[in-house]
């Protein structure tokens, strides 16, 4: 009875640990291939375009509306203790440190992790990955490394652009709906925003980009057969990337801001 109960707890724990081990090994393999030739520059460029440039509209729109909503919330919350004037500084710090990287990361996870997992999963079930191997091309180098590197480099830039658009969203709402003076709003923003606020958000973005591409590639490469297998891989990639982004965000915030 007790043994059966322990076994029912132990089995999923062991399965979970085994999955963590497989992902860690996959990540380690990807990192070692990152620094060893051959390098596929064309695939890297293509990935950079797909992950970075084409994610710009969704990240920009998310940041714009978030910055605007944040300004309204801080204004209405701050009014309870006569602190409406903190809107510009809180919007800037909130966007740069937290909302820019986290929401940007989650939007990229939804858009990119799903797309990578579906593409690589389809390649797996249609034997294209086997074909790569028979053509003396390592799939880790050809498929995984360019995507992981592109996402790790592109997402921080997306975060920086998203921060700017988010702050602009707050400014727009501030001057059109909350009676802020435009020059005053911008001066408060620049006075309070520190380099580290932006840099920490960009570092988070790099970590989130790595997570997004890694999860897309891992679940794609391990996709089961058929449309259902590819669908399941896509779903798992998005869920895992999103959860890991939130967990990594907490850990990085602890490291950056609590010492």
């Amino acid at each position, binding site marked *: 009875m007790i043994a059966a109960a322990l076994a029912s707890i132990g089995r999923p724990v062991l399965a979970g640990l085994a999955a963590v081990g497989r992902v860690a090994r996959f990540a380690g393999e990807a990192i070692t291939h990152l620094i060893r030739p*051959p390098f596929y520059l064309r695939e890297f460029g*293509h990935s950079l375009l797909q992950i970075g440039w084409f994610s710009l509209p969704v990240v920009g729109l998310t940041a714009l509306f978030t910055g605007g909503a944040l300004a309204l919330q801080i204004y209405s919350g701050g009014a309870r203790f006569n602190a409406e004037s903190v809107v510009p500084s809180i919007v800037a710090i909130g966007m740069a440190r937290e909302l820019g990287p986290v929401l940007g990361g989650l939007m990229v996870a939804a858009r990119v992790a799903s797309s990578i997992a579906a593409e690589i999963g389809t*390649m797996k079930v*249609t*034997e*294209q990955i*086997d*074909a790569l*191997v*028979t*053509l*003396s*091309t390592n799939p880790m180098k050809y498929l995984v490394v360019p995507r992981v590197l592109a996402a790790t480099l592109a997402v921080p830039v997306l975060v920086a652009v998203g921060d700017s658009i988010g702050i602009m969203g707050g400014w727009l709402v501030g001057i059109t709906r909350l009676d802020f003076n435009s020059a005053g709003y911008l001066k408060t923003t620049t006075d309070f925003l520190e380099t580290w606020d932006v840099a920490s958000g960009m570092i988070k973005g790099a970590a989130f980009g790595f997570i997004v591409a890694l999860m897309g590639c891992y679940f794609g490469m391990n996709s089961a057969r058929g449309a259902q297998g590819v669908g399941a891989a896509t779903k798992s990639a998005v869920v895992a990337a999103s959860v890991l982004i939130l967990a990594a965000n907490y850990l990085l915030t602890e490291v950056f801001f609590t010492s």
Partner: protein
Amino acid sequence: MIELSAVTKTFGANRVLRGVDLILPRGQSMVVIGGSGTGKSVLLKCILGLVRPDAGRITLDGEDVAKAERDAFLARFGMLFQGGALFDSLRVWENVAFRLMRGAKAMPPDAARAIALEKLRRVGLTPAVADQYPAELSGGMQKRVGLARAIAAEPEIIFFDEPTTGLDPIMSGVINALIREIVVEMGATAMTITHDMSSVRAIADRVAMLHAGVIQWTGPVADMDAAPDPYLQQFIHGRADGPIESVR
């Protein structure tokens, strides 16, 4: 020469290969036949190292393939996959020239494209196809592109996995004839997997029948019809009655 000795492979509870012994002599065209799900593709993938056998030994010219230097080993092979396995994101000529543009002996794109066009012509496709994407081609054309890719680097050994599956009889005949011509012309060693008997008769020098995880029968194609093996006879004549269960 490729030699398999007591090769086994199990997936979960499914013992697919149960001790396969097979010799493929250099310059010969071997066709492996057998019902669906009997492990024919797994056998090919074991030789190429895409699937690792649980036990047994596979050698190429006496060298254990598991210990061979991978790039040099794979450079000796070309493979036509069942569904073509063409890379969707690349144009037809880039698919054909894929190997030529990579590795230590990578060619400049212009030279690789010229060879790709020549190989496409060899399989009966015009240069107009070269700049299209695989999704724009019919199934038969995709097979031809796959065939062009398999022979682009003029490999010593070519594997064909179900080369005529999904094609109409005329296109099947065209592909079979192309395979035979190319194998003879290049002097390549070939292994083809199929359950299409017209392919067997068109392509094979030797035939091996895989059943229940072992080689049930092997011999020259000329001996196939007269062979007394009841499994082989049931299979080549497509009879529902016989020692092979029709419901598997």
